[in-house]
């Protein structure tokens, strides 16, 4: 079933040596400090420098953060969290700060300060960029947080679950360590299910098909826990009579290296994906409904690789909107009669620009669509961003910080909450249970698949 090509071999050769399996260390040590400062120096670009220098401590970003909005803990104010690195910047780069650090809030980086950074920058920030959208000075908090996270992760001080997810991805090519055999078996089963559902033996899930127009990626949660999502995607693509394929090599849409600002390993993952798409000669990489996965391959990959890949990238939400607008699929919204609201994944909206497409999809696919109070790029993070779901040590705080989102969901009276991201999906499902919201959480493709009119 697999199409093993020379290009595939090249990809395998490009795979890095297996990462050491040691767990993250429990605390920073004094010898980490010079290396962390070296990283800060190397990563200092104009966006980071201007973001560190421009903050005037006005505090207008405070209420933009879902951690603060839900708990009113002043330590969760974005400016305070960013100041943990800004203090180091002021001591190291600011002229007045070098002479009189106390005067401008400058501070030497110490293991104690680094521990505070670990607690708040991993444990109380999802790098959602909502604070930046509400900052009068244009401070890009995400670049500050990514730098701080990498300074810590490079010292092997990062949440264990996040490290494990990245290690597994780098070792096996996908973040859940799903073997090729397991994947193929799942996809063959789903193909049979799809054919039975449509009563159409021509409904296929093509694997490793050279020259297909679209190279469909998946979040590993799909083959592992949500195979019906793959069925929904395949149903839509079949209805649109689309030419697509799934690779059995680098099909994983995710790139958790983004969450620790690890450009080198993020580049490796992006390179595998790019080489796989290019070796199959596909025109487009079709990114699964995965917020950070879309952002990684659509926007960051070219920056990491230093070149534009020889294919275009489109999100599944974007393609569904395109099909609807072009009349390539027909939907019957009465098949989704319950009230639906939509949560915008931060990486897709605030960092990715997918803002109106989900609305085009929902208006065509459901009868009663209502917006959350804060929507589009102004949406509050659900709390599942930035790799937060892998950080079990911060789980209690993650759920507390979701209070503001839970209240907004409840206020809509929606019975279904749609989203376009697997991390959001899982976090929203947890919010649903924790706050007893009584909603169903679904991906957009599931609603579209339910509404499809197959001719």
């Amino acid at each position, binding site marked *: 079933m697999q199409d093993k090509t020379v290009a595939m071999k090249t990809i395998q050769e490009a795979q890095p040596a297996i990462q050491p399996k040691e767990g993250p260390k429990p605390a920073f040590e004094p010898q980490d400090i010079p290396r962390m400062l070296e990283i800060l120096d190397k990563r*200092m*670009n*104009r*966006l980071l*420098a*201007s*973001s560190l*220098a*421009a903050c*005037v*401590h006005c*505090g*207008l*970003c*405070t*209420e*933009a953060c879902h951690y*603060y909005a839900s708990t009113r803990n*002043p*330590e969760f*104010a974005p*400016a*305070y969290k960013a*100041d943990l690195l800004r203090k180091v910047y002021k001591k190291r780069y600011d*002229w*007045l700060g070098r002479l009189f650090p*106390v*005067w*401008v*809030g400058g501070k030497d980086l110490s293991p104690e300060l680094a521990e505070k950074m670990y607690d708040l920058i991993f444990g109380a920030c999802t790098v959602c960029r909502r604070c*930046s*959208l*509400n*900052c*009068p*000075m*244009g*401070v*890009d908090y995400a670049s500050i947080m990514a730098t701080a996270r990498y300074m810590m992760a490079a010292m092997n001080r990062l949440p264990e679950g996040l490290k494990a997810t990245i290690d597994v991805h780098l070792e096996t090519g996908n973040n859940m360590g799903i073997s090729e055999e397991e994947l193929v078996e799942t996809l063959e089963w789903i193909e049979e299910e799809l054919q039975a559902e449509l009563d159409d033996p021509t409904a296929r899930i093509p694997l490793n098909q050279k020259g297909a127009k679209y190279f469909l990626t998946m979040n590993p949660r799909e083959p592992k826990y949500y195979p019906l999502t793959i069925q929904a995607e395949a149903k839509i693509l079949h209805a649109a009579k689309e030419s697509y394929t799934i690779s059995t090599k680098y099909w994983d849409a995710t790139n958790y290296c983004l969450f620790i600002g690890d450009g080198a390993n993020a580049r490796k993952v992006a390179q595998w994906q790019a080489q796989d798409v290019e070796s199959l000669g596909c025109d487009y990489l079709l990114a699964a409904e995965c917020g950070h996965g879309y952002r990684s391959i659509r*926007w960051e*990959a*070219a*920056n990491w690789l230093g*070149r*534009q890949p020889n294919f*275009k*990238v489109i999100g599944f939400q974007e393609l569904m909107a395109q099909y609807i607008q072009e009349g390539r699929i027909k939907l019957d919204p009465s098949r989704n009669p319950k009230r639906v609201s939509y949560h915008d994944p931060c990486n897709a*909206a*605030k*960092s*990715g*620009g997918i*803002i*109106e497409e989900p609305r085009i999809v929902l208006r065509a696919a459901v009868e009663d669509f209502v917006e959350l*109070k*804060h*929507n*589009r*790029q*102004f949406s509050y993070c659900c709390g599942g961003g930035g790799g937060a779901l892998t950080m079990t040590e911060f789980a209690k705080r993650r759920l507390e910080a979701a209070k503001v989102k839970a209240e907004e969901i409840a206020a809509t009276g929606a019975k279904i909450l749609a989203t376009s991201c697997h991390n959001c999906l899982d976090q929203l499902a947890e919010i649903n249970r924790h706050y007893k919201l009584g909603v169903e959480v679904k991906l957009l493709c599931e609603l579209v698949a339910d509404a499809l009119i197959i001719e």
Partner: protein
Amino acid sequence: MHYEGALRFLMEEVQYMALAFMAMVYVAKVLWFFRKPGVRDKAPLKGDPAVGAVVSLGNIFMPWAMESTRLHWFFYLEFVIFHGAVALTILSTFLVPFQLMVPGEGFSRIVVAAMGLAFLVGLRRLVRRIARPELRLISAPDDYFALVVLNLFFLSGIWALGTGEAAGMWVFFIMTTFFLIYVPFSKISHYITYPFARWYYGVNFGGRGVIARAVKASN
């Protein structure tokens, strides 16, 4: 009104020297900044970076574009008054030495009124910074000092431009000199760093189709 002797020296030569010093520090800062690598998406763009940059830079004039200013409209109004008064006060330091502005008359009355309002705003901002825990937590001595010293500057300006007294002029221009030397090193220099931050943010997220839509979208 004609100014003579030492006061005239303070108003002109000393100001020019302090201005030249300020310009030198800013040039050095900007050169340092431009030695750092720029950041620009290499992927095919969805939006227009130029529009993003313009919208981002114009954000200051669009309080409706951000939830933080839309909900806190009084804070935005204070911002306009405070910064407007700062601009008028700076303008006065250029007009007065050349007798283009007569203390106690005409335009100077408007400037004095603006400084009076800005003084009240400054006091309120100081109270806010002390009273709110999340602001106390992020405030350094420079944050408090900037507000205190600007309020003193407004008071000296009210004295000088309201009455035209020589003593008032001395205090006002000594404070102006102090600002020209101190500001490039303090948070007050945010007017130099702010356009860079907004530019880069606007270019990057305008290109991704996020920023320019922020104006149209509603919460």
